[in-house]
């Protein structure tokens, strides 16, 4: 006798009358077994694999004679090393990749995926893109699922209400072999963003602001649930952007409770549940919200009125300023080691304490990355660039869509023409200049207004100076050649 589809199942470890947070509900639904030492074996529903963090995992499986337990719950997509220039010549032949080591990693994934029976989306497939764009877009990432990938921005999928987090290569190997991970339950934090964001303020500004408030390690050991009116009002693309950067404030994962918007986003995607499965899924997903009276280990409340279009000044994502702000003096920080770090950041960034961040000249613009390369991001950038040209001092400005499907959609809407007419380059999908593993790098000593997620030293290339911003702000910087308050271009 089968249970009625969609019925709520009593889960181990929690009595049904104890109010539970969203995190605890998803956790409880995935416990294979609890161990005496306080760890749990947790089942993994979806595993995304890319070429950088998987070769050594496949190598280890091969050496130990082990198989992939559930190749059908695994999806492989190359993204980090792919050039964003054409990948096939006019005759449809693959254009060789100049960097031998990049080519070797890509080649390893292309061989490992079929060898282990894993679905592979290739470099020239329309569906190819950044794993964290492809997963939601294909309906592979689902609310309530546990999702892992050997990439710290896996937290992204939490925007759909999935428990998603980055893992290292040994864990990739562990998931490939066992479809589980041995984990200790994290602490919980609620970050509630109340009110309404103003004009020119986007999901990226919200998450940069949160990172500034919490600090780069503020969420360490926690899974953060983002709540409040601002989060509810965001589109799914915006929610993916917020959850994407959970790791930048140290959190293991970010979560946003799924709602009608989420269901509408997921429905009809290639791997999304269909028919009877869909009804059962929605019934379960509807229960995935923190119960009234559920408690978090920590609660942080943020007022949307405090959030301006934001920009980073330093070399940690916590170094956030409103675009109207001034570069802080190292001695303004209470913590002695932060004072030292701030001075180093200023030296690296070529900025002086007390200088307004608005007006700082930039030479490069990067619109892309798993944080900001979805269709909504491209529309926001194009809205600013339409009918305008990039400034002459901006030498390199590229737009890298998050996937081939995003690219096709943007082209159908004519956004590619807007970018090209404004003097920006329209590229093929991939991780690109977010971390410069492919040829897209920012030259040493030059600045980049970047929609990516990390402003670390050397992240976009040795000596490169990164200012993290939203797509609209990156477009504004392209137009004026300086870090600019996008509201001035409205």
């Amino acid at each position: 006798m089968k249970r009625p589809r969609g019925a709520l199942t009593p889960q181990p470890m929690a009595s049904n009358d104890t109010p539970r947070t969203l995190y605890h509900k998803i956790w409880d639904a995935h416990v294979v077994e609890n161990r005496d030492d306080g760890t749990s074996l947790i089942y993994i529903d979806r595993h995304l694999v890319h070429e950088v963090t998987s070769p050594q995992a496949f190598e280890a499986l091969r050496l130990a004679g082990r198989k992939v337990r559930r190749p059908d719950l695994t999806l492989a997509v190359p993204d980090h090393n792919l050039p964003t220039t054409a990948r096939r010549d006019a005759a449809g032949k693959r254009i060789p990749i100049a960097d031998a080591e990049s080519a070797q990693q890509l080649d390893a994934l292309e061989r490992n995926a079929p060898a282990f029976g894993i679905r592979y989306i290739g470099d020239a497939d329309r569906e190819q893109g950044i794993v964290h764009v492809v997963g939601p877009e294909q309906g592979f990432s689902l609310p309530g699922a546990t999702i892992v990938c050997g990439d710290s921005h896996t937290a992204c999928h939490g925007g759909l209400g999935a428990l998603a987090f980055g893992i290292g290569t040994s864990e990739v190997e562990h998931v490939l072999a066992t479809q589980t991970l041995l984990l200790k339950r994290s602490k919980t934090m609620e970050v509630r963003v109340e009110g309404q964001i103003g004009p020119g303020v986007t999901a990226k500004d919200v998450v940069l602001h949160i990172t500034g408030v919490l600090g780069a390690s503020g969420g360490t050991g926690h899974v953060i649930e983002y709540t409040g009116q601002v989060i509810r009002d965001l589109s799914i693309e915006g929610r993916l952007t917020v959850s994407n950067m959970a790791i930048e404030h140290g959190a293991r994962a970010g979560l946003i409770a799924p709602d009608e918007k989420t269901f509408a986003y997921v429905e009809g995607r290639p791997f999304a549940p269909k028919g009877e499965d869909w009804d059962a899924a929605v019934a379960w997903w509807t229960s995935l919200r923190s119960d009234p009276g559920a408690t978090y280990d920590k609660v942080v409340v943020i007022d949307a009125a405090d959030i301006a279009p934001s920009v980073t000044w330093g070399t940690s994502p916590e170094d956030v300023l409103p675009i109207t702000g001034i570069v802080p003096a190292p001695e303004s920080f209470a913590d002695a080691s932060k004072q030292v770090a701030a001075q180093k950041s200023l030296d690296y960034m070529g900025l002086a304490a007390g200088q307004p961040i608005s007006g700082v000249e930039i030479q490069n613009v990067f619109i892309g990355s798993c944080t900001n390369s979805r269709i909504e991001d491209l529309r926001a950038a194009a809205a600013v660039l339409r009918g305008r040209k990039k400034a002459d001092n901006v030498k390199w400005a590229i737009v890298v869509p998050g996937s081939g499907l995003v690219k096709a959609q943007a082209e159908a809407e004519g956004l590619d023409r807007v970018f090209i007419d404004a003097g920006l380059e329209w590229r093929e999908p991939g991780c690109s200049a977010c971390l410069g593993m492919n040829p897209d790098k920012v030259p040493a000593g030059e600045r980049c207004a970047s929609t990516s997620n990390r402003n670390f030293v050397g992240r976009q290339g040795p000596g490169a100076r990164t200012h993290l911003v939203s797509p609209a702000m990156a477009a504004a910087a392209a137009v004026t050649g300086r870090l600019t308050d996008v509201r001035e271009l409205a």
Partner: protein
Amino acid sequence: MEPVQQIEGRAYPFGQKNVDTDVIIPSHWLKTITRDGLGRGAFEALRKDPDNLFDSAEFSGSPILVAGDNFGCGSSREHAAWALLDLGIKAVIAPSFSDIFSGNAFKNGILTVVLPQEAVDRLVEVAKTDPIHIDLENQVVSTPFQDRFPFEIDAFRKHCLLNGLDEVGLTLARDSQIATFEGKVRDERPFLARGVAA
């Protein structure tokens, strides 16, 4: 994996806060498809300074690194752990670690020891001139000067490190429990159980 029991020797008095994995191993070193040889790229940017700790005659090859808060933050790259291992580092002591890094370190047999800031400050001072001793069995860090800093460690991790156990092999032994769970999911949440074909 090599069992980890006692770690004794000189320690890098590093102490920096928020050291991210891009600093530990820059992205251009991530293009390998094997685990060896990454020590050459470890802390590459810092090692451009000829007076850096990692290449100094005194500290080079030290088995212990004493670092600041939030060590290993940022990218999930396990290459950071492989790079430290290749440098000869067997243990890192810090006031806190990023969750992903400490998991990666553990899986490669690197011990991460969390101690309060004051203890870490003291160890940075001691490390400049003298060796440090870590006793995993008894969970204590000591110095030649009677300092004794007890530390907490997850019981499972301790057991695995002391015995050099392979976590994948241990979990594979739970195959029937995993299969039972999969059956339950097929029954109750079939939409999660249905995968994609190769």
